[in-house]
């Protein structure tokens, strides 16, 4: 019971302190909407292009909403040594890091539904398979958060966290099939796409929203789940190796 009290309070502190603040809202919500507008105008097909754009916009919202704050705040707390307080608390490192990433995961789950709500007023979303969308959003949020965690434990300065995040995030917009089908990419780049977890999440969303998935859903879910476990385990290993020296 005591460790869950610690878990809950770490999670709530981060939500209040970081995730409901303007910088995160701008990255997780305003930025994806700006991208939507750009692609919407570029598509030139009016409202009928919305279902094509929606999976990509939802994925960007999750990716930027989760990674923007987590990588920076963990690095910041480590620099100012307040993270040591958490390491000294009598809870396991696994539970501690789940609490630290919980806020980002929650924000990542909520943020893609902002463009969905807007799209629902402008386009017919009755054919969307929500039973696929919801677990896909949860898994993309988890995998993106753990990607942010991996970045946080790989750097020591806040500016490095920001630079490193963008090094990952911006190429993913083009490589993971968010707005351009992977098959339209040059053949020598495609292996890179398949090495990125977001590709599988975006594929589920494309399938659930407009039936345009290129891989079986089961395979997408399994690979996404495997990425979640591998990224979390690798981040914990790095924390033990680099932060508990």
């Amino acid at each position, binding site marked *: 019971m005591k460790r869950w009290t610690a878990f809950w309070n770490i999670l709530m502190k981060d939500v209040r302190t970081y995730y409901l603040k303007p910088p995160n809202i701008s990255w997780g919500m305003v930025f994806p909407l700006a991208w939507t507008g750009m692609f919407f105008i570029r598509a030139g097909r009016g409202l009928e292009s919305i279902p094509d754009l929606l999976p990509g916009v939802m994925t960007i919202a999750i990716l930027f909403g989760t990674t923007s704050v987590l990588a920076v705040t963990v690095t910041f707390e480590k620099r100012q040594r307040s993270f040591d307080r958490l390491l000294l*608390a*009598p809870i396991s490192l696994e539970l501690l890091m789940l609490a630290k990433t919980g806020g980002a995961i929650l924000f990542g789950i909520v943020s893609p539904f902002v463009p969905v709500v807007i799209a629902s007023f402008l386009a017919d979303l009755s054919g969307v398979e929500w039973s696929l969308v919801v677990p896909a959003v949860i898994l993309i949020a988890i995998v993106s958060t753990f990607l942010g965690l991996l970045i946080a434990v790989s750097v020591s300065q806040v500016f490095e966290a920001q630079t490193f995040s963008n090094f990952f995030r911006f190429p993913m917009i083009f490589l993971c099939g968010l707005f351009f089908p992977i098959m339209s990419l040059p053949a020598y780049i495609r292996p890179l796409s398949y090495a990125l977890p977001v590709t599988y999440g975006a594929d589920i969303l494309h399938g659930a929203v407009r039936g345009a998935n290129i891989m079986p859903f089961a395979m997408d879910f399994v690979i996404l789940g495997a990425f979640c476990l591998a990224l979390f385990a690798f981040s914990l290993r790095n924390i033990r190796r680099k932060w508990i020296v």
Partner: protein
Amino acid sequence: MPSSNGAIIEVAGLTKRYGDVLAVDDISFDVVKGEVFGFLGPNGAGKTTTINVLTGLSRLDAGTVRIDGIECTHSPKAAQHLLGIVPDESNLYPELTGFENLCFCGALYGMRRKERETRARDLLEEFGLADAGDRKFETYSKGMKRKLTFAAGVIHRPPILFLDEPTTGIDVASARQVRQIISELHRQGITIFFTTHYIEEAERLCERIAFIVKGRIVKAERTRDLLQPVRGRDVLLLSVSKWAENLCDELSRAFPNLGVEATPSGQVRVESTEPISIAPLARFLDERGIELTEARRHLPSLEDVFVEVTGIGAGMMKGEKERAGGRGGGNS
């Protein structure tokens, strides 16, 4: 559960290396339940590294650690629920208020909401921060930050408390208050592991003291036993109008029963196990055209023991830390 000799912290052969640097070199010591144990040494001696290993922030390379009978060598988390830690830097959350910071730290140890809020208010009162409880931590002065960090370390009523340089960098009044709180916690039966470079502070607060230099414990005894060899010594510090070459040698020859040496501040230090008479010394100097401008009787202290054992001047220790982090109220 403490061991049969009453030790609540048992450390044997602890060694810690950072790359090529041997930070702690095969140290062994016990801390008895309920005592204030001082770890005294200059910057870089290995004090903070030792605390980090004992509390689980660092891994040891060799040796064993047991806390309250719990084997912590390979599972440092096992005893963390027993520990309170006041680090050498104030590391609370700048964006939270003082009250929120204390409540959050209580929650980390599983305290229920009502319990931690009541305790936080009591601690704010006790540490003289009640009026600042609703202010963000980032607006606090250095002394206030230090006191709140101290309060955060004890909010969960730990039976063992690690204090890493608790009075460094704060004003004299705050330092005095911190020392009073340490004494009060000691009276309550809390075991305190205390690092400092302020020798007088260690002498005043600690029942046992270990001198640590370059990662090795060079001496560890009860404070009164450490002081025993210097108690009863008579020490005079003489200021003279001019410094003659070989003055100390000449004094030694003329007064073979006295220990004579020059101090770094340009005085002559005269020491004896018998009471020293000033008149013969003044006459001796006068005959050589040197005026004795001041003779001050010096009460030997732990500082003398420390200097004797380690060869490190107390002034140097203070100077180092002050350059690093600002003078605190080590003494008042």
